[in-house]
């Protein structure tokens, strides 16, 4: 293993160690975060907050605490933050698909929550309408936090002395399920990171903020490669999503593979040591693998099979692995998939077609995606760690 690879593996932990040295002051961070939450960041529109849940520093502070509180799961080991890991882009670099309570499998990759405030619906299939209600499903899902009931979670927070007075301070009211949703929402809506080199170039008037190669990549993204038809870029801001659902062919391809698995699978058991393990050997130690039909599971409309919500591509270089099941390790894998024209099955979106991009063009496109990384991203991780996660 090369040194740089080692360092990149080690980086997340390095960030972990930073919170021992409080670079973010515990008392005032939430005030600053509140401001960001109200004004947004160069390249993004001003975030909208529901009128009935205006953010405050107290709500953000409390939301952060709950988000990382490992006690709020049946066996006190899972929090939101164990799957949405700040140092790993508020997702998880170490797993394609998430692993929850007692090691139970999830079907999908834990997506980044940074800029999720700009989605109109939540989850890869858009089944949820907002943060205020979204949190209930991970709290109760048997393969996530496995709490026996929502009421139990409220009762637990009531009991834990370190929450004494906190909800009263934020709301003038005691803890309730509704208010837990509100503080989690306020915290998650504060996870905003734009002001990338691309933003400074496109919206900030800094013509040198991105390289010529990245500018060529931008031309491809908005032109020949057709990416911005779905990952949209506006006149004054860029969401990199159309908040709509598309069949890129990817979901269909993975389901086809699941139903027709290859006879052997390459397994890298140590750096550079790859063995081809037989299907039988894998099946012997595998639980059932579950199908994933995407948006169809929400609408029951066959026309929605294998459609997924277009993900925001901001900070995409920091949020590997990619796609709804984390099945692509590198950005280049995603680009190669698009260049091939997706999976070319019947229902696939007509916008996905063989692109004929040359090697140089693929590199330009990837360089452009690298320009979407916000300098403020690491700050979000530091803020997330103003205090240690709560344990029993």
């Amino acid at each position, binding site marked *: *293993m090369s*040194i740089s690879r*080692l*360092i990149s*593996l*080690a980086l*997340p*932990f*390095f960030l*972990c*160690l930073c919170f021992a040295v409080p670079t973010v002051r515990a008392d005032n961070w939430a005030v600053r975060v509140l401001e960001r939450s109200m004004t947004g960041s160069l390249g993004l529109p001003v975030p909208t907050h529901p009128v009935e849940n205006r953010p405050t520093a107290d709500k953000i502070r409390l939301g952060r605490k709950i988000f990382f509180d*490992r006690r709020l799961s049946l*066996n*006190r*080991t899972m929090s939101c933050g*164990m799957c949405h*890991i700040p*140092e*790993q882009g508020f997702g*998880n*670099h*170490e*797993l*394609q*698909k998430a*692993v929850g309570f*007692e*090691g139970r*499998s999830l079907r999908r990759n834990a997506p980044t929550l940074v800029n999720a405030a700009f989605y109109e619906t939540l989850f890869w299939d858009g089944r949820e309408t907002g943060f205020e209600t979204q949190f209930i499903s991970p709290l109760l899902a048997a393969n996530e936090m496995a709490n026996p009931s929502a009421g139990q979670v409220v009762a637990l927070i009531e009991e834990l002395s370190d929450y004494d007075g906190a909800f009263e301070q934020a709301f003038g009211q005691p803890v309730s399920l509704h208010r837990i949703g509100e503080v989690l929402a306020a915290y998650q809506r504060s996870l905003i990171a734009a002001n990338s080199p691309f933003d400074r170039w496109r919206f900030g008037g800094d013509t040198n903020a991105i390289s010529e190669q990245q500018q060529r990549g931008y031309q491809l993204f908005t032109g020949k490669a057709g990416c911005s038809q779905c990952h949209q870029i506006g006149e004054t801001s860029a969401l990199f999503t159309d908040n709509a659902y598309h069949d890129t062919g990817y979901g269909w391809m993975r389901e086809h593979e699941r139903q027709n698995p290859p006879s052997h*699978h390459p*397994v*890298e*058991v*140590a*750096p550079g*040591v790859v*063995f*081809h*393990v037989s299907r039988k*050997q*894998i*099946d*012997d*130690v*595998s*639980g059932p*693998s579950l199908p994933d039909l995407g948006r169809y599971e929400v609408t029951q409309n066959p026309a929605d099979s294998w459609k997924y919500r277009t993900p925001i591509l901001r900070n995409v270089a920091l949020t*590997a*692995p990619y796609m709804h099941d*984390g099945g692509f*390790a590198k950005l280049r894998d995603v680009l190669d998939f698009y260049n091939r024209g997706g999976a070319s099955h019947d229902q696939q979106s007509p916008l996905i077609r063989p692109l004929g991009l040359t090697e140089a063009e693929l590199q330009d496109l990837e360089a452009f995606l690298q320009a979407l990384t916000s300098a403020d991203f690491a700050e979000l991780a530091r803020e997330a760690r103003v205090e*240690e*996660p709560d*344990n*029993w």
Partner: protein
Amino acid sequence: MGFRKLASVFAGATMLMSPGLSLADETCQSPYMPKITGEEEFVYVWTLGKEGIGDESDKLVTVDVRKGSDTYGKVVASLSVGGRNEAHHAGFSADRRFLWAGGLDTNKIFVFDVHSDPGKPILTKTIDTFVKDTGGAVGPHTFYGLPGRMMISALSNDKDHGGRTALVEYSDEGEFIATHWMPTAEDPRGAKIASDVVDGYGYDVRALIRKNVMLSSSFTGWSNYMMDFGQMLEDGEAMKRFGQTVVQWDLHSRQPKKVMHVPGAPLEIRFAWGPENNYAFTTAALTSKLWLIHADDNNEWHAKEVADIGDPASIPLPVDISISADDSRLWINTFMDGKTRLFDISDPYAPKQIYEKVIGDQVNMVSQSWDGKRVYFTSSLLAQWDKKGDADDQYLKAYDWDGKDLKLQFELDFYKEGLGRAHIMRFGSSKLFGS
């Protein structure tokens, strides 16, 4: 650590090394521990609860192994602790009066009194503040008795459930003493990085007192050891997160001295017993290699690959190992093919397999008596790694070894008995306590 503490650790060490106390019942225990000189009377099996089996709870199962006893080969006690904690390893305190058993998922540690009535352990204490006490270590694994205290290797951490972790010390009374984080690239803590590779991961911890050496090995974090094994094999990201190091520590000062490169997840560490034998064995689970960790004439420690275990390409997955008291034999279980394999290790640099036998559809732990004549096996590796369907047989099997063949004495079906998944075994005897 203050000078007084150091001095008392050292005094304990010298005392227990005095002649007459240097025999062990089973061959893989802390050398600080009092020993059974006769036959073991009970086998304690730390058992994982399983949904739909019995009371579904983790439990300490006591099996009578006194030949001639009415209840020979039978479960004589079963003590449920509540919950599925990912029961895994357990170890006696150095005075051997208590058995500490850990849960890799919930981080709970259960302390059983095994001296008041060795045939019926009593749960005397549950430590449920491990993560908080240690400042974020997750997954208490090996319990290695040092005089007056317990050295515990953890497997993960509370920030990302990855492999970065620590060694942790508690007093025999169950009070937290210290956390020693594993050396990493950013913070080697004074350790020499032998070949560029350092991961901060943990698994086993063992000591060679007369060399003042402690070794730790490296497995993987919570996300991997808790997840479906098959899913993990197909998850390229997860497979990148396995330990590749063995760390040499100064036993007394607890300072890491050297990080050695041992790829493929080195698991159990077994020091040789002979007074001239300055080496330990470990097996790399994923690459199926037997490694020798040895001191050279200048007291410098090195890692050397010395043998293949089965056909590595078929991923036999070597798991538990057990060294014979005379350092001539090493039992190595391979989980995937359910085999135990006996290696002749009289030349530690050139071990050779001399015997093998299929124990079950899957096999994990192996424990032998000090005289090597009795060998016990259990089946469970990790709840989500065990085989699925019919191949998930869960058992304790007791064999006699006559030097040529293993002869089955009894077997207990842990599902039929309504118990669960059988994991680590520890031996008990009333003779230890003068009764």
